[in-house]
């Protein structure tokens, strides 16, 4: 190769490098992204996260962004190409094993992580790791123990796996390992991909924890989880019977504790219920997760006693089904402790409900409340204003009678 052609060749590479630099030059924008928020919250709550997603949809890219946002160095370990000893430690035979024992030497990446004191450990391709490797990973994920070395608390762990349908030769994730993770389904958002290829990726932001709300958040989370499990003891531990769900989230005391922590973190920060829903369902499974969330919804509803104490200032929920629940609760509270003042206050609440929302919601509570009347209680004037609900009820009755005749 003569000198001039070599120079030309170099120039081409320089230009190529410039072009590559331009392509790498992307920006980020704040954008509401539920799954990224969920990932960030779980990582800041120091719970191991497992991302399930088809290959090539940007799990690794999301991890890079997360590491950048959290300002943590990222260490990627491809689980499937490692041996069990890379996680459980390599036994190194010394001079006198009988007195000194055989130390389990940690691999280089673990030493580096431990020395840095903080970082994001990304275990990629978890589901394609052989069972012995998965077993060795149990201790890393749960106890942060790599051989004789303990990873410091500043290390956060995220793993990724391909769903069975796309894994060429996937091993099942064993139920004990699955139970240690918060499972997040990682799907791509068409708009996010389009914006990203256009040069702008969404920005991961840490949930801002409010110091003032911390004690309340812990109390709230404990009430929510204990309230549910007290009423539904069967939900405490349920190993999935269905084959396809064994490698997914399932309820156990361990995963309930994780759910409790997630609720506390979500409550102390300004994270939406949608994000929390994703996390809780990914921790204890769909059914128990949805029951827990339904419980949270009920805890958000105004307390019947507060409403009865101040019917004029009452704020009733906008949503019809929640309003119905609240009104039923008010009537039930009056039934429990029937006093004239409470009965009157309940009527004022019903009038308020009628004036601010759909009238059919009031019909059943009004009928139940009317039946609670004692002989010496005068009919309150407020009842006049409920006549609309009465005629509405009558029309529904007529329709029912008509349908009955036609049947």
């Amino acid at each position, binding site marked *: 190769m003569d000198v001039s052609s070599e120079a030309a060749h170099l120039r081409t590479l320089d230009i190529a490098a410039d072009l590559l630099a331009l392509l790498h030059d992307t920006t980020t924008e704040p954008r509401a992204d539920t799954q990224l928020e969920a990932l960030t919250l779980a990582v800041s709550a120091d719970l191991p996260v497992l991302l399930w997603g088809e290959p090539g949809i940007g799990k690794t890219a999301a991890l890079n962004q997360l590491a950048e946002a959290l300002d943590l160095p990222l260490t990627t370990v491809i689980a499937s190409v490692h041996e069990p000893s890379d996680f459980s430690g390599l036994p190194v035979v*010394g001079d006198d094993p009988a007195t000194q024992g055989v130390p389990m030497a940690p691999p280089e990446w673990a030493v580096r992580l431990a020395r840095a004191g903080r970082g994001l450990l990304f275990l990629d391709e978890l589901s394609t790791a052989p069972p012995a490797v998965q077993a060795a990973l149990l201790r890393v994920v749960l106890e942060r123990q790599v051989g004789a070395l303990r990873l410091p608390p500043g290390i956060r762990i995220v793993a990724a796996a391909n769903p069975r349908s796309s894994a060429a030769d996937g091993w099942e994730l064993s139920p004990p390992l699955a139970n240690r993770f918060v499972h997040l389904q990682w799907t791509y958002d068409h708009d996010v991909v389009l914006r990203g290829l256009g040069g702008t990726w969404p920005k991961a932001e840490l949930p801002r924890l409010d110091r003032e709300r911390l004690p309340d958040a812990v109390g709230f989370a404990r009430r929510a989880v204990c309230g549910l499990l007290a009423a539904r003891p069967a939900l405490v531990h349920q190993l999935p019977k269905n*084959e396809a769900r064994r490698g997914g989230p399932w309820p156990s005391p361990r995963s309930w504790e994780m759910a409790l922590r997630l609720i506390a973190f979500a409550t102390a920060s300004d994270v939406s219920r949608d994000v929390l829903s994703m996390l809780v369902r990914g921790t204890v499974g769909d059914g128990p997760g949805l029951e827990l969330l339904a419980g949270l919804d009920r805890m958000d509803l105004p307390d019947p006693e507060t409403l009865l104490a101040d019917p004029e200032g009452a704020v009733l929920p906008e949503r*019809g089904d929640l309003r119905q629940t609240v009104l039923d609760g008010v009537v039930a509270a009056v039934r429990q402790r029937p006093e004239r003042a409470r009965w009157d206050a309940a009527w004022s609440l019903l009038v308020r409900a009628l004036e601010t929302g759909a009238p059919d919601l009031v019909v059943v509570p009004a009928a139940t409340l009317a039946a609670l009347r004692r002989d010496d209680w005068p009919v309150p004037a407020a009842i006049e204003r409920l006549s609309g609900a009465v005629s509405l009820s009558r029309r*529904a009755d007529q329709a029912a009678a008509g349908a009955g005749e036609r049947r």
Partner: protein
Amino acid sequence: MTAGTMDEEKLFAARLHAVRSRPYLATALFALHTVESRQVSTMAVDRHWRCYVSPAFVDHTPLAELAGVWVHEVSHLLRDHHGRSDRFAAQHELTGPGERLRMNIAADCEINDDVFGDGLVRPEGAVRPVSLRLPEGQLMEDYLRQFRLGPYTAGYAWLDCGSGADGLERDWDLGSGGATGLSPRERDAVRFRVAQGINGSPGDIPKGWQRWAQEAFHPPQPWRELLGAAVRSAMSGAGEDYTYGRPSRRSAGVPGVVMPSLRRRPPRVCVIVDTSGSVSDAELGSALLEITAIVRAVGGRRDLVSVLSCDAAAHVTQELCHAEGIPLVGGGGTDLRAGFAKVRQGNPRADVIVALTDGHTPWPEARPPGRTVVGLFSRQRPVDGDNPHYRPEAPPAWARVVTVG
């Protein structure tokens, strides 16, 4: 009420009537937020659980029929027709309003065959599978594969249940920004509460709703995936894994360190096939092909897979190398114990046993030596005239059971 505004009393009286005749849908019906709209011709829903109502439609529709429309519209949302339409459209790359109209019609067919009657009047002009010359009781996706827009559907061109039914945004939709809509989590919560209510007291709730409630949050998995998962996890203890039996190839580079090596010991799989008269050849064939494909995918060689056909006695053991055409011998009554006994005698021993059966068999007392997967054909069998109360024995607890077919 002044002229020109909506007769709210009638609209909500209709909802009350709907709630009284379908108490298990009360939560969902009350969760709907009504929006008066002159752009819709009847009633329509969006995916955020808003219900758009035409005042004129309320005026000229009898109250009893209006109640039926309420239940019909809320059914679209409970059954996630907009999400299913979107998925169907993406999967088959369907675009255009014509296709969405087809989805609306198919969704209506799914709802209308069991939603009316028993106190609810069928609204005039409601689409039913019969009017498209289609069988009743199928899912929207099934109907979509069976008809095109044409003379039978011409009468329904006006049909419009909104974006909540077919996923296509309408002009009148308030979108996700509006304050009155339900967030995805709230929608799930409402659907969950309704499903829980139905599962809690199925009593006299129609079969269609019971099926919906059972599958709302746990859609049935395709049996192929389940069988694959079961066979794979049964094999995972037997196949490739680490062993200290021989030194690792890495050992040469790190003297003084003891390292395990990766050794592959492909599992032997034995498939016991129930060839009694009750299982059809087509079912057996598909299940068998599926198993061989799974075994091959996880690294078992075909010569390690053997098939045993079994009715009252175990017949032929044959290695699978001879093409896919495996002669299955048998017919008549079943006793899989004979098959399991034969596997037990086998030398070398099978690591994994897969039994394909309809379950009408006695099971062995003791746990067989290998891990066991049972593929169960679930079909309605005609009741035995001599013994109408006969119920097959459930597969034992030591087997992983997958319902096949």
